[in-house]
Structures are given as structure tokens and as C-alpha cells.
């Protein structure tokens, strides 16, 4: 299945891109994607727990199972205001 992964703020700087298309096995959870990012990007290696997670523009649990066509984003600590 295909999932679109969006990068914002510090994560966009680390990834060097706004978004990536991922091909994932059925049953992949949001936090599984985070664990693979930790292996891809050395700057994330120490971050064992994912930040907040959004699926299709709503907050979701790290254990949420992704579906084909989902838009996934990891939300670094917010700092609006």
C-alpha cells in the first residue's frame, strides 16, 4: 500500500524534503514508520518514541494501523502563539 509521509519544521530540515511516498506492507503502524525513519536519519536515532502523530489531518495513536492512501505526519512539539 502507498502512504504519503509529510515532514514539517525540524523534521523537514532533517529529511531535506516536504514529503515522501512510502510503499508499506499491510498492517504497518504509524510508529513502525517512525522506527524506520530513525534508521534512515542519524539525527533521529536517539528519539526512541515518536512525537505526536497525525493521520489524514487528525491526531492519532502511534499504534494506528495505516491504510492505503493515508497521509501521515509526525508532529514535533508545537509552538504556536
Amino acid at each position, binding site marked *: 500500500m502507498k502512504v504519503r509521509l*509529510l515532514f*514539517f*519544521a*525540524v523534521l*523537514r*530540515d532533517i529529511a531535506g524534503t516536504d514529503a515522501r511516498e512510502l510503499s508499506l506492507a499491510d498492517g504497518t503502524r504509524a510508529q513502525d514508520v517512525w522506527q524506520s525513519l530513525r534508521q534512515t536519519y542519524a539525527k533521529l536515532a*536517539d*528519539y*526512541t*518514541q515518536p*512525537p505526536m502523530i*497525525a493521520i489524514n*489531518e*487528525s*491526531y492519532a495513536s502511534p499504534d494506528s494501523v495505516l491504510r492505503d492512501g493515508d497521509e501521515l*505526519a509526525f*508532529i*514535533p*512539539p*508545537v*509552538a*504556536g*502563539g
Partner: protein
Amino acid sequence: MTYLTDSVIDPQALVRRVMRPSDGAYVLFEGVVRNHHDGKAVESIFYDAYRPMAEKEMDRIVRDIEAQFPDVALAVVHRLGQLVVGDSSIAIVACSPHRAEAFAACRMMIDRIKETVPIWKKERGPNGEEWVGWQGHC
């Protein structure tokens, strides 16, 4: 309703948007870029957002607070992009027939925005730049 802007905020336009003849007060809050944070000098701040989600979150919070304070009407706008010291990053107007509810709703609005709306800031100063809140997250 659009809650995000890339332009200078006009607070009086925000007041005009929500004030009703029955209102006896409005509370206007503006968040302003200051020249320091955690003991470091700040020259400018870049605000970034997950725009569609931030719009939805802000709308959810507005509805929530208006449900808690049925006499209050709220307007809020958050600016994104590059801001310098003295620029307003956010303006909130809470109007109500009576002041107590307006103060309470305005305070709740800014507190809730800071908790969940996906907006981020990168502070720039003489010693470099940094995304606020990321260091020490893990």
C-alpha cells in the same frame, strides 16, 4: 473561516468581524515576537504550520470554547512566515455581553492553541537558529 495568514495582522478588522450590538466588551490578545528566549537573543522567528490541520484544530478549539461560553464570540488569526521583533504572531478577540466571560474565553483560546495546533517556530538570533521545543524532546 481562515485562521492562518501570511500578512500583517489587523486586530481592529478582527474586532469588527465578530462584535455584535449586544456585546458590552471585547478582549483583544496579541502575541508578539520578543527579543529573547531562554536567555538567548532573538532577532526573528519563522512560523511554519501543517496548514489544513492547523485550520481544523483552530476551528475545533473555537467551537469548543464557544460551546463552553455560549455568550462569547471568538475570532482568531495566526500569522505564518518570517516575523521580526515587535510583529504580532497571533491575535484573538473574544467579545461578550459581559467582560468576565470575554477574559476567560480569550485566555482559554491562547492556552489551547499552544497545546495542540500544529504550528512551529524557528528562532533566529546572532548565534544561529533553532526549532523551539525540539531540543530535549526525546
